[in-house]
């Protein structure tokens, strides 16, 4: 495998022009998402690093694609701001470009939305080696086709992302998390559904089935003087007599561990499965039968599974449930599993942007 680490955008353009097949990579914190592309020349974007523009009172920043999220987070934090879509694997070395290309958002996307809701602009090197821009750098923009959104979850299929602009928000002054325990999934799910409908402005809402117990975690954020009263209100909505409250560093660590997938054992496949609260019970029946480690994140709009058994089995099960999944870590042979979502529109988009398949194509497992 031949790998290049271009130092400049011009070098990326030269490499793309010089090779028939090219495959982009970021920080490789999500190795499962690197699409197989026979004989492709690998471009690592890590050297394209740095925040190019950040004006806190604009709520926006622009950075090169290889900039580590850790660096961005630290920089925003100095000004009391953060990335509200809560991209995962920050400490594992995830980059801004990888966060966009993977389309992954963390538990914190429950409050304000995912990567698609915060991306403003993109620059990428296309299959002809041209530097192409889409969107802009201001918080509101409706000019031209929305290429930035298309790049969220693109998995490197359309080009090499080199620069991205995002909207940011003020970081809440303080957080607290309430954890409720339940004997059965049904009770926990009922409370999750109740909270989903409340005007509570939760920053995260997660359901975690474990051995003999089901946990529900709700995260509140805001001004410190409001938290106690809001937590009390939250408690009153939950039908659990096992309630724990977490604050301060322990609370922050809990969610940091969540976004690093500290709960997923080494060597297991880590799979993202989009779903809705109504589908939780039927999926969980299968996952429980396989003793899979799992959590239902974003108000049960997203299931994360650490799967030890044969991934082909999960693929068939998901297909049966008409759910699809994406293998973020582990070798599954195919990044996308379960029920195929490809359609004619997607085919035409790929054909327009990369007619000779210089970049890889994401296909579903057979």
């Amino acid at each position, binding site marked *: 495998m031949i790998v290049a680490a271009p130092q400049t955008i011009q070098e990326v353009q030269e490499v793309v022009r010089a090779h028939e097949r090219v495959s982009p990579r970021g920080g490789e914190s999500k190795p499962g998402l690197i699409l197989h592309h026979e004989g492709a020349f690998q471009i690592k974007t890590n050297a394209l690093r740095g925040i190019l523009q950040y004006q806190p009172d604009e709520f926006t920043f622009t950075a090169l694609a290889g900039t580590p999220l850790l660096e961005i987070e630290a920089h925003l934090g100095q000004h009391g701001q953060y990335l509200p879509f809560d991209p995962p694997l920050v400490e594992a070395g995830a980059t801004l470009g990888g966060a966009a290309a993977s389309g992954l958002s963390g538990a914190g996307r429950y409050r304000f939305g995912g990567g698609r809701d915060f991306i403003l602009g993109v620059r990428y090197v296309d299959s002809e080696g041209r530097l192409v821009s889409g969107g*802009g750098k201001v*918080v509101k923009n*409706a000019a031209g086709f929305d*290429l930035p959104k298309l790049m969220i979850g693109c998995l490197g299929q*359309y080009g090499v992302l080199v620069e991205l602009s995002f909207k940011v928000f003020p970081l809440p002054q303080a957080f607290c998390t309430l954890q409720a325990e339940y004997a059965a999934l049904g009770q926990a799910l009922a409370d999750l559904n109740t909270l989903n409908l*409340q*005007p*509570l402005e939760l920053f995260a809402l997660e359901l975690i089935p474990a051995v003999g117990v089901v946990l529900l975690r709700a995260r509140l954020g805001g001004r410190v003087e409001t938290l106690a009263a809001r937590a009390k209100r939250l408690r009153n909505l939950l039908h659990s007599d096992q309630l724990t409250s977490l604050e301060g560093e322990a609370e922050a660590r809990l969610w940091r561990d969540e976004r690093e997938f500290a709960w997923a054992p080494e060597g297991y496949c880590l799979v993202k499965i989009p779903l809705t609260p109504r589908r939780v019970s039927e999926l969980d029946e299968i996952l429980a039968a396989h003793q899979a480690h799992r959590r239902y994140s974003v108000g049960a709009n997203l299931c994360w599974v650490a799967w030890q058994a044969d991934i082909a089995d999960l693929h068939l099960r998901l297909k049966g449930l008409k759910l699809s999944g994406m293998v973020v870590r582990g070798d599954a042979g195919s990044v996308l599993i379960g029920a195929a979502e490809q359609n004619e529109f997607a085919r035409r988009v790929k054909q327009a942007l990369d007619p000779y398949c210089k970049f890889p194509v994401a296909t579903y497992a057979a």
Partner: protein
Amino acid sequence: MDFPALYSALMELYPAERLLTKPAQLAAYESDALTSYRARPKAVVIPETQDEVIQTVRLCHRYRVPFVARGSGTSLSGASLPLPEGIVIAMNRLNRVIRIDPEQRLAVVEAGVINLDVSRAAAPYGLYYAPDPSSQPICTIGGNLAFNSGGAHCLKYGMTSNHVLALKVVLPDGEVVQLGGESLETCGPDLVGLFVGSEGLFGIALEATLRLLPKPEAFKTILAAYDALEKAGATVSKIVASGLLPGAIEIMDNLAIQAAEAAVNAGYPRDAQGLLIVELDGEAISVETDFAFLQEIIAASGAYEVRIAQDEAERLRIWKGRKSAFSAVGRLSPDYLVQDGVVPRSRLSDALGQVQRLSQETGIRIANVFHAGDGNLHPLILFDGRQAGAIERAEEVAGEILKLCIEYGGSITGEHGIGVEKRHFLPLMFSPADLEVMCALHRQIDPEQISNRGKMFPS
């Protein structure tokens, strides 16, 4: 192109009352809210089912006759301007709210559903649909999707695209595709995101699955009057820098205030040179706490009058004035152009100064209304179309304002889209390579350019 063959086929598909060809019937469809552009289509069809739309698109494709899908025609960029050689597909009767699913916080609606009707249908469950363009009592979801409509609450809640989970779309050749799903999350590229805001060039959205949000528990709306517009602008920067995240931050200048007062009597201070409206929303206790901070900022901002909405009726009156500002300007001038540029928020005061300079230099009156939290300017350029050359002069000023927005690092449209009006400005914002990529997408999805031909790209 074979219009006679298409017409014969359409006569099979539609009863006479839903296939319009008489000049008097077609006149209503000649333009949208940007009335300075007009064209009479060959026919208008009024489908009542999704299948009728699909069949119509397939027929247009077969006979190579271009079509323009149209909702309520509230576009301010000429988005639904017909083609003299084409037909209009009027989508208003596709207005079924198919499903409200409170448990999953979503609504499935047809494209002709009125924006505000989504929130009305969701209200019994304590939910609402957040995007609120000023035309929301009449504009349709289909139009909102095509142009990624905004509104007053975009800084915190985003635009239309941020609230669309899934779409059922008929592509320009009649193929029907499903994009997205019911979950907030997806695997693979954001195709819904690409479709929304494509200005009708990728086909027609038939049905949309929209994200609903729990209605905020509390609102606090404050109105501050200033003797200078710049003071209102400077206060916006202070609010944003404080770490507050208001639901809306709006500014109106004196001319816009006069218009709104004449039209709806919103109770604004008539002598204010700049009027700032700030609204906080959310959990009651958080709103109360944040509001105390907001009041401190406004108290120190040099406002000569401050009013707080005491109840929901007063809050709605404040918003009625703001949301009716565009049409209200009709009371000050026989004609006007609404512009829709965006500048970085920190350049708001500079941009306003330049707009005022342009007004003084040209002698053309300009009223200013803007979504200040987003840096989204809406200068209303007043003119009398009966005077020779007046519209051309107004358009020239509008063009200067757009160039200014690009110069400041902003955009030529925040929420109205490019349409026909701003086609020639697109190359000022994007390079030839950027435009070529967009055109390649367009060509691949609609090789015949049959769907909303002539919009977005310079001819």
